[in-house]
């Protein structure tokens, strides 16, 4: 009989769609919590794709692709003007 896990301890993939709001509200949004979340995310990515014996291209290229997409999103308001429209 598996022990019932509290909502705030469940992983994101196990949270049902209806519980998403309350799950997000229960997360730790203090600066320390955010820093911890960043650190955990970084460690997961690092240990999965970079800290291996024979690392491939994907580890680095995914980071660069993410950077490209993010910078495109930040500069969209400037790129808007290059659209093919009569009235921008």
């Amino acid at each position, binding site marked *: 009989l598996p022990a019932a896990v509290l909502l705030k301890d469940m992983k994101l993939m196990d949270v049902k769609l209806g519980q998403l709001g309350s799950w997000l509200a229960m997360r730790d949004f203090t600066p320390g919590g955010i820093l911890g979340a960043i650190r955990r995310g970084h460690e997961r990515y690092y240990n*999965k*794709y*970079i*800290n*291996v*014996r*024979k*690392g*491939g*291209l*994907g*580890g680095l*290229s*995914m980071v660069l*692709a993410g950077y490209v997409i993010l910078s*495109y999103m930040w500069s969209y308001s400037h*790129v*808007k003007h*290059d*659209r*093919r*429209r009569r009235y921008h």
Partner: protein
Amino acid sequence: MLSRLVLRAAPAALRALPPPVAVGVLHTTRPLHTTQQSLAPVPPLPEKGGEVRHGLIPEEFFQFLYPKTGVTGPYMLGTGLVLYLLSKEIYVVNHETAAAACILTVIIYAIKKFGADVAAFADKLNEEKVATALAMKNEAIQTLQTAIEEEKKEQWRAEGRSYLFDAKRNNIAMLLETNYRERLLMVYNEVKKRLDYQVAMQTLKRQKEQDHMIQWVEKNVIQSITPQQQKESIAKCILDLKALSKSAHAAV
């Protein structure tokens, strides 16, 4: 090491818990460490990283969509997304697109051509690093082994300490014996000297008594010889001499 931490934390945690109903029963309201955690030896690095398809999308995405859409699902999703972005002009085609296309072509060509060589070179560097570390580790182990051997040898040597102590004890016994005999000799000499002195004293006394007595007797005898006796003795001597001379004349 962590188990030691747990062992130290456990009594404090147990004290923090409410007092137990029955003494001697361990109340586990929180699960203690059940796994065998330890920080050493460190597990080795995984051989290969997570799978990434086309260098951009992790394999987990394809596996996530496989049950519902099969093999072509993610590609259909990708195509649909791209067409949507283009048609709605969320992605705008401008001079940057041309630049990006040229750059990406060059990059992909370079990767396809030189990727394997660069990977081999990097692997070689890694191998060397690991080899040096391994050599250091082995050397350390070797030194420790030799140290263990030396230590065992020293322990074996220390077992002979009883012989050493016996030899020392013999030495000391001999010293004591020698000392004793020297003193014995000294005592003997001293006693002999004193006894000799006593003997010499006695002989001297007797000699002196004898000499004195002889002298005294002679003195008295000479005193007792009166002149009358002296004349008589001289006359007797002359008569004796005459008799003797006669007998001597006769003999010749």
